């Protein structure tokens, strides 16, 4: 057990160091950091002084170690474009992205699970077939296209919902929320649905497959033999046993929801981290790119690590398999 945890932890640290190396390489070697910090009229002597002060002449490893140390403290330097500390920019944008992602994940769960249960119970029904066909079409439609179609329908033709931005926000300490105002909630509807759709089809298909699997097992047959009502069997016994993989997948998908938020934020001009990142790529604003890169990698590594460890604790079969597999390697 301890061996597995340590190995997994070591792997995570390696991944983070690799990502940090890429981020550092970008920061240090793409363009000249000095040129990006000072104006045209700075003399060569002053440039040299600044170079020395920032430690840009130190050996590679020293500079990299300094970068990692600063990154661990959340210090990624100053954005070339915004002329403000990157950490400040990200903290400002973080609530918007997190609110959008969490609401989208909730929608995906609350709609995807019932749809999956329904299609699992009524395999041949008309509604089930429509759901399945729709989900295939949904997978083929790129996220941004769905967003555009929603904007066209509800924003331009019907004029029901705002098409860009976050609406009015309320500040709670450093956290700004759009969940407490009417305009904020209205602005959230379309981006959240756009972001949720793909995950929703994924969850629906997963729940459907799991339901079909569970309904074939012996304990369901015994439950029927005991004369339990359909409702008790389907929801009390079958659904409960399908939820472990669903929760795991949703946990893992939280990371990709935040990544896909880049696209949704761009379509709806939602002022989150994704939009910040896209603008940074377009303008080659390297400190912002490096910071986003490290942050999203940290997010993924933590989620994957947590899910792996939880699995290991929850499922004893996996423990045996893992030990056997790693015992040979």
């Amino acid at each position, binding site marked *: 057990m301890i061996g597995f945890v340590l190995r997994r932890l070591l*792997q995570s640290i390696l*991944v983070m160091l*690799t990502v940090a190396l*890429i981020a550092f390489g*970008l920061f240090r070697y*793409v*363009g000249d950091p000095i040129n990006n910090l000072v104006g045209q009229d700075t003399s060569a002597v002053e440039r040299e002084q600044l170079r020395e002060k920032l430690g840009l002449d130190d050996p590679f490893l020293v500079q990299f170690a300094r970068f990692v140390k600063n990154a661990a403290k959340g210090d990624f330097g100053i954005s070339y474009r915004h002329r403000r500390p990157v950490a400040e920019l990200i903290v400002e944008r973080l609530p918007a992205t997190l609110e959008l992602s969490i609401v989208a994940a909730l929608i995906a769960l609350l709609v995807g699970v019932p749809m999956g249960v329904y299609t699992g119970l009524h395999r041949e029904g008309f509604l089930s077939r429509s759901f399945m066909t729709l989900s*295939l*079409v949904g*997978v*083929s*439609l*790129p*996220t*941004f*296209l769905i967003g*555009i*179609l929603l*904007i*066209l329908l509800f*924003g*331009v033709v019907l004029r029901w919902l705002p*098409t860009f931005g976050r609406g009015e926000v309320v500040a709670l300490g450093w956290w700004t929320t759009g969940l407490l105002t009417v305009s904020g909630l209205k602005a959230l509807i379309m981006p959240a649905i756009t972001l949720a759709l793909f995950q929703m089809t994924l969850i629906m298909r997963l729940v459907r497959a799991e339901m079909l699997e569970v309904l074939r097992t012996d304990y369901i047959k015994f439950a029927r033999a005991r004369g339990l009502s359909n409702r008790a069997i389907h929801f009390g016994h079958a659904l409960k046993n399908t939820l472990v993989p669903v929760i795991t997948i949703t946990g893992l998908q939280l*990371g*990709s929801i935040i*990544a*896909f938020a*880049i*696209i949704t934020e*761009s*379509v709806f001009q939602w002022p989150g981290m994704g939009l910040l990142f*896209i603008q*940074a*790529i*377009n303008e*080659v604003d*390297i400190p912002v*790119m490096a910071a986003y*890169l490290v942050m*999203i*990698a940290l997010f*993924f590594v933590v989620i*994957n690590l947590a899910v792996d460890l939880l699995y290991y604790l929850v499922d004893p079969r996996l423990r045996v398999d893992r030990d056997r597999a790693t015992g040979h*390697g």
Partner: protein
Amino acid sequence: MAEQLRRPWPRGMIGRLLDSDLFYSFSRSPVTVLAALVTAVMMGAAAFAPWVAPHTPFDLATLDLLDAFLPPAWMPDGDPRYLLGTDDQGRDVLSTIIYGARVSLLVGFAAVFLAMFLGVALGLVSGYMGGMVDAVIMRIADVQLSFPTILIALLIDGVARGLLPRDMHEEMAIYVLIFAIGISGWVQYARTVRGSTLVEKRKEYVQAAQVIGIRPWLIMLRHVLPNVMGPVLVIGTIHLAIAIITEATLSFLGVGVPATQPSLGTLIRIGNDFLFSGEWWITIFPGAALAILVLSVNLLGDWLRDALNPKLR
């Protein structure tokens, strides 16, 4: 079966193809036939764009700003010369779609081939060599697989843009995209090829080749490779759909191909600006073309997967 016996096909390549199980299952699935037809028509139109397209949208001499923002031909102010209407510069939307599909498909195919080449090579080496090489390649694959493809493509694209001087962004954009999408997609190929290589490695013909002293890379290329390519083609088809979507997404985000040589994604981004003023056709038609193309390729891929190998899920 009886039907096939009554109609003996001519011998030769085409005869063998028409007589195969693959063609039989193909002709029995109307959805697949339709998808193949749609894919063929779109690819054909894209390949022969200069002859098929009614206008040459990127030749400034033929453009007339007076023709800008014309709606599709069947609407009140439509012009029969422009079936799907015109955009802000008076370019024919149908022609820009045909030329755009050309760029989208070019990037898609090139990226798939790059990913396929990389993935098959690494998978072969990984499976055949084993040991440290295998461990390192597969760890990298694991790590890459834990991030979404689009994010990796976006990052590679961003890094490449950072490395290139600013004035080269536009002309290099297509190569950067192919590189980014290709690199982000090799893992699936590598994993599959590694798996089948491990199986093939233990078979007699490989051992025989080893015993008579053929060099390892020759065994890999000449003996193992042909036997592990089946599933690779299936992954390639499905990957083509993903690559086209990824390209469109990056171009839509403004970090893909530039407006001077637009792909379907770029066209949608350009048209998006006019959505609010009511000129919906500039963005909706390229979007529909993209969706239809991807859906058809996806359906073909699904069919090929089921037809070639029921085990491959």
